[in-house]
């Protein structure tokens, strides 16, 4: 019996060693090899449902083969971040950042800003990202844009204003008067910020600029209505609330890719619009 156990263990460890050799035989630091592995393991036809066990199996296989490929950890974390399992998601995000800070620091900041609403943590990541990859974009927006959102939510309004103005400088490549390149949501959040700062004139100016680019954006119409409410202008208030409701009912929203997973800062729903209109749910 003992001999059989020894034989089994010898075969088992022999196979394990062979696999390890095969793994170490792969040059995990060769960029071309890494690219082809990513294509094979993460960009194949089976990787379409991140809630399928297959998703994790492909990620784990790649990590076992080459544990230094950052994107494998980021891809592996997707289903966890989207379903509230932060204890599983963030060690994976941290590993991705550790392996490739230039590519993944801003992304982690984005997750903290939009998904876990850890605004202080997000600001730290975006400041680091700005040093690593200055004036770059994450999910269609500049790093100062997200810092602006975080500072808005933290009540640091002066900092938020500086951030959003800095974002405009980056978006326009240093020519802030050329507003054609400014994202409508930069104007939206400037408008919301000035609404919170009780600067009605600047709030209106920016919300109208936002609406000039995206006339039905429910959130811009809602906050414009709130400005008019503060100015005791019930006609204009009602007008913009009705527009907000119409477009909301048509399914329009902030037009951000991740809006399905999480509410953005200060984002409103039909519930808040109806409440402002005095409609009972």
């Amino acid at each position: 019996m003992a001999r059989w156990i020894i034989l089994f263990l010898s075969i088992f460890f022999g196979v394990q060693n062979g696999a390890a050799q095969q793994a170490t035989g792969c040059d995990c630091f060769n960029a071309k090899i890494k690219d082809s592995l990513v294509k094979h393991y993460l960009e194949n036809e089976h990787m379409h449902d991140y809630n399928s066990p297959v998703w994790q199996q492909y990620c784990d296989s790649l990590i076992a083969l080459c544990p230094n490929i950052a994107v494998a950890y980021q891809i592996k974390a997707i289903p966890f971040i989207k379903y509230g399992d932060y204890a599983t998601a963030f060690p994976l995000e941290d590993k991705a950042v550790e392996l490739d800070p230039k590519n993944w620091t801003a992304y982690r900041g984005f997750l903290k800003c939009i998904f876990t609403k850890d605004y202080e943590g997000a600001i730290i990541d975006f400041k680091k990202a700005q040093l690593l990859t200055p004036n770059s974009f994450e999910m269609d927006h500049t790093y100062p844009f997200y810092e602006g959102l975080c500072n808005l939510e933290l009540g640091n309004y002066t900092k938020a204003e500086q951030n959003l103005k800095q974002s405009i400088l980056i978006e326009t490549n240093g020519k802030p008067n050329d507003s054609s390149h400014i994202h409508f949501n930069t104007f939206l959040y400037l408008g919301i910020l000035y609404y919170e700062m009780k600067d009605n004139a600047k709030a209106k100016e920016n919300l109208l600029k936002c609406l000039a680019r995206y006339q039905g954006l429910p959130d811009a119409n809602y906050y414009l209505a709130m400005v008019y409410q503060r100015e005791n202008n019930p006609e204009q208030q009602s007008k913009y609330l009705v527009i907000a409701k119409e477009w909301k009912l048509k399914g329009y929203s902030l037009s951000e890719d991740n809006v399905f997973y999480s509410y953005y800062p200060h984002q409103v729903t039909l519930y808040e619009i109806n409440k402002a209109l005095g409609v009972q749910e």
Partner: protein
Amino acid sequence: MKHLILIVVVLLCSKLYGQNITLPDGEYMDTTSAAVPGCKDYNFYYYSVGGKYPQSSSTTLKEVQVYLQQQSITFSDSGYITFRFKIDCEGKMMQRVQVLQTDENYKPYHFNKTVVNELFAFLQTLHHWRIVKTKTGDPVLYRAFITFKIKYGKVDNIIP
């Protein structure tokens, strides 16, 4: 009589300080679940069916802050308490609610059971979950979650 008092004390303490139900796949507030007849499970998640709770995070935040104020709970921890569950074909939260807890650095953590229980009780007051149907009109259930972000003993934000 002494035994009766002892049993009552033990029961009360277990409610306040007892553990959640730990199963191989996680920690739960409860374990039983009764499916609504005809309510199919196609493994949908809230994000593929527009199933985030249909009011903004700040509205829900105000509601939970008022609710907790009425319960007079004091604690000082920071972190995240997440409840994951299914919404049935009538828009009701089903039983078998999973609970996940981390500290503010996303490390596994356990809040006082009273806090978890009170947040769970608040969760059960949310009655506006969306009823989801397929294109052919078949009602379906979907998976949803609510996370309470807690900072120094106060609910600071609601996710998603």
